[in-house]
């Protein structure tokens, strides 16, 4: 354990860390007094509605706005031509591509934005949008990445390279892996499609854009998970200096990666306020959200594992075809076009591995956001956990035993993976043992054998995953060139209360509580006296925001180290107050005391008062700091999840009987909040395993554009979860924390699916893709000749 973590002094009772302190943000939410973007109303504010394309691929021969402009209250209608005047018809994407804001000469996917209408009321804007006449000439649609790969129809005519292929990204030793596979005693192939899904925070994306024509300042109230990054992007595309742009991300009704990108609606609203000189509000409808927000996943993967007859893995190869939609708008750090997918060797000690991803354009909504996931880690984890189960079955081994045989051992950390990562720490065996014991694995296997003998269908699914989060170290991680550090500012007021600001932005994660806990612990202050503020670029220090489980690994480190810097100064003040040299002062029991003399002590609060009333001679008055923390490595949370299902052989209904989730996210700041995030992520994993999928037909028609067809689980479907933790602190993080919000979404889908396959395996079923509907199971059973009654 490093000195940094020892500093927390885990041997004794902590003051604020590790406690289930009730959330300080709750009071306004339970009273309906949160402030979300749609709650903001400004004088003279106009409402914006968007005209969308009914075609997935078509030329635009003309746009007639005459009738629409006659609707009472309509102030203006803009198309790409108008935006071109401001150089805003196309904007750069995070992936180095560009995308249309409003359709120029053609539409590339169904529901693409074609025109924006500004009117006095929401209803007038919608009415007028329906009267905008667009003349389309349909083109051949390519809605499938495998069809796109043939390059028969080139979708992006604006690009120099006449191909639908966007990139090939590969990592590892291809030759050595192929050789190892060729020589392997056992080779197991596993295909898996991770369906296209929508993150679906319940609050749709929204903006209130307000250009003050007197001051020249542009204020954007925005559903933003990354306000500073968005300010920089707005400045780069509009030419307005960052100092004249203020982004305020108020309360956010869920993000899950959905609120990381810059969407065309935002740009249109900003253009609207700049041109019209009055505030403009746009709130996406659910249909707009489902059809035009960045999608997630859509990875067609194939894994091959080589192993010895005794069940020791020797090689892994994973190849993927990725559907990126009409523009490459994937939200990944610059150097990683397929995100952190190369974590696909998971928790297992593969001597050699290779992976490659080929991405293609199709006539579908662009995107590739990390939906409650650290950049394609969900896909990687799902693939390896599915493949490990298949390999175990092929070897005729118990999937638990097979995992034990192949785990990276505790002593191997820091572990260099064959795909280039240095895993910081972990104890996979212990975590898995805790999970197996909690679920009663051996008894369950006995029960399963008895049930099988009676023709009943029961399955046990395992996922022992490793995540890679906390992007990230600036040597490798940037977005548009901006390094992915994060910042925290701590100001101690004269009376000892505090304001803390960070470059992150909570969307339900509870930073107003957990950030206060970190600072309270480091400085011996009361959590209640620490106010946490995020989301306003005028006041918060720079940081790249909250997604990819990065807040605690990055800003959490900045808070702890910033607080320690303040403590150093406070120590000098304490020496001044106690009339000794700073060398004679020690920090003990949350106080500064003369070494070995507990009766001679002062608190941080005493020092804060002195910092303003009686500063130490030669020292700057005041007690505050801004700390930018550039993490030395990523963090690698892990977990062991076990799912037990019963399947009704008449109907195909899968009932999740139990779900045990043991997570290891390192040091825990607030166990209640960690458990809450795990519950939520397990529910979203359930949603992906059994319900959620965006479906297109061959013509590129989006077939489930709202929640009547895109199924979100309710309290009635979601199973109960049994959670627990082991604690392996990160050796390099200032408080040993690793991040947790996404572990359950990353780790759980494979556990659900493996349970279903385990249940159906006696009937020869080895393949089933998410979402696992009753129909799919029913058909598999009937195809296997299982009688319904």
């Amino acid at each position, binding site marked *: 354990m490093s000195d940094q973590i020892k500093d927390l002094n885990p041997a004794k009772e902590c003051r604020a860390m590790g406690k289930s302190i009730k959330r300080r943000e709750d009071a306004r939410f*339970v*009273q309906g007094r949160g402030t979300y973007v749609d709650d903001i109303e400004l004088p003279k504010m106009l409402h914006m509605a968007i005209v969308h394309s009914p075609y997935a691929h078509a030329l635009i021969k003309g746009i007639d706005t005459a009738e629409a402009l006659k609707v009472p209250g309509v102030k203006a209608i803009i198309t790409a031509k108008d935006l071109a005047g401001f150089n805003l018809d196309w904007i750069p994407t995070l992936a180095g591509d560009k995308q249309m804001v409003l359709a120029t000469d053609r539409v590339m996917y169904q529901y693409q934005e074609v025109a924006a209408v500004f009117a006095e009321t929401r209803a007038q804007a919608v009415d007028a949008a329906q009267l905008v006449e667009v003349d389309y000439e349909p083109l051949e649609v390519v809605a499938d990445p495998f069809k796109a790969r043939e390059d028969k129809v080139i979708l992006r005519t604006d690009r120099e390279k006449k191909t639908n292929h966007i990139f090939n990204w590969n990592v590892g030793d291809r030759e050595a892996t192929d050789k190892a596979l060729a020589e392997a005693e056992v080779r197991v192939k596993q295909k898996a499609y991770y369906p296209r899904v929508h993150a679906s925070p319940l609050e749709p994306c929204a903006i209130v854009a307000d250009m003050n024509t007197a001051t020249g300042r542009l204020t954007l109230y925005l559903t933003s998970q990354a306000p500073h990054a968005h300010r920089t992007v707005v400045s780069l595309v509009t030419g307005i200096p960052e100092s004249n742009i203020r982004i305020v991300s108020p309360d956010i*009704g869920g993000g899950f990666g959905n609120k990381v990108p810059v969407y065309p609606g935002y740009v249109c609203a900003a253009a609207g306020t700049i041109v019209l000189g009055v505030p403009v509000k746009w709130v996406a409808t659910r249909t707009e959200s489902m059809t035009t927000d960045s999608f997630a996943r859509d990875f067609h993967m194939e894994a091959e594992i080589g192993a010895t007859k005794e069940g020791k893995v020797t090689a892994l190869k994973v190849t993927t075809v990725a559907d990126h939609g009409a523009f490459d708008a994937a939200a990944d750090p610059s150097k990683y076009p397929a995100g952190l997918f190369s974590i696909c060797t998971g928790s297992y000690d593969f001597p050699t591995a290779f992976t490659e991803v080929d991405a293609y354009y199709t006539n579908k909504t662009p995107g590739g956001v990390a939906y409650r996931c650290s950049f394609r880690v969900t896909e990687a984890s799902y693939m390896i956990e599915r493949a490990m189960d298949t390999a175990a079955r092929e070897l005729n081994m118990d999937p638990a035993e097979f995992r034990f045989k192949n785990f990276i051992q505790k002593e191997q950390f820091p572990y260099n993976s064959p795909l280039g990562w240095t895993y910081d720490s972990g104890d996979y065996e212990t975590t898995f043992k805790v999970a197996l014991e909690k679920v009663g694995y051996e008894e369950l296997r006995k029960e399963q054998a008895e049930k099988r003998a009676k023709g009943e269908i029961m399955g046990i699914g395992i996922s022992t995953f490793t995540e890679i989060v906390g992007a990230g170290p600036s040597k490798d991680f940037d977005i548009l060139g901006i390094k992915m550090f994060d910042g925290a500012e701590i100001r101690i007021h004269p009376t000892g209360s505090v304001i803390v600001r960070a470059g992150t932005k909570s969307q339900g994660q509870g930073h107003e509580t957990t950030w206060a806990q970190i600072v309270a612990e480091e400085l011996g202050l009361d959590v209640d006296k620490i106010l946490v503020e995020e989301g306003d670029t005028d006041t918060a220090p720079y940081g790249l925001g909250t997604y990819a489980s990065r807040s605690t690994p990055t800003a959490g480190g900045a808070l702890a180290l910033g607080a320690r810097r303040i403590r150093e100064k406070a120590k000098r003040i304490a020496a001044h107050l106690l009339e000794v040299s700073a060398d004679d002062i020690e920090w003990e029991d949350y106080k500064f005391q003369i070494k070995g003399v507990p009766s001679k002590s002062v608190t941080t609060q005493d020092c804060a008062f002195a910092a303003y009333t009686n500063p130490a001679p030669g020292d700057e008055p005041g007690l505050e700091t801004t700390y930018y923390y550039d993490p030395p490595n990523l963090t690698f949370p892990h977990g062991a999840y076990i799912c037990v299902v019963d399947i009704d052989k008449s109907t195909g209904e899968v009932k999740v009987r139990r779900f045990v989730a043991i997570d290891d996210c390192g040091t825990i700041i607030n166990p209640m909040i960690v458990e809450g995030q795990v*519950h939520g992520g397990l529910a*979203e994993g359930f949603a992906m395993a059994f319900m959620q999928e965006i479906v297109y037909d061959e013509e590129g028609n989006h077939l489930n554009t709202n929640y009547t067809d895109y199924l979100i689980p309710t*309290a009635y479907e979601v199973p109960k979860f049994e959670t627990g933790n082991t604690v392996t602190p990160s050796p390099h993080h200032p408080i040993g924390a690793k991040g947790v919000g996404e572990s359950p979404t990353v780790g759980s889908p494979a556990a659900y699916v493996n349970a279903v396959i385990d249940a159906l395996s006696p009937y020869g079923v080895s393949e089933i893709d998410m979402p696992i509907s009753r129909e799919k199971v029913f058909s598999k059973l009937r195809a296997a000749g299982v009688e319904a009654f």
Partner: protein
Amino acid sequence: MEITLNVNGQEHKVDVEPRTLLVYALRENCGLKGAHVGCDSSSCGVCTVVLDGKIPVKSCTMFAVQAEGHEITTIEGLGGGANLHPLQKAFHEQHGLQCGYCTPAMIMSSYALLQHNPDPSEDDIRRGLSGNLCRCTGYMNIVKAVQQAAADMRQPAEAAD
């Protein structure tokens, strides 16, 4: 057209279009922002308010004009400040919320449920709230919160301790 809405015991004279949905009248005409909008198919339930003291209604499924003559209760009328309703208290204490977007509606649906069934089983609660989506909590702590509030409301004297 001018109508009068009785919201949280107060009369609001509002000028709405015949097509104005109740949720927009509450939010934009009455200034009560606690009911949210999350979908356009009456699926998500984040706009739920209570009609006539016990009927949970998704306020996006009702025109404002249809609400005239009814007593409407929104989250703002349930409790506030130092006088939180046992449900509001329980959602906080049981960590039954994260981003807060579904919370007012989840509490209003729970309120209506407890008017009909003061001692619901877990299954009753899960069924009773199945018109309200939440993306953050996985529902477990919401169920616990409703159980706590139900117990508090059955024994108000004990709950005050």
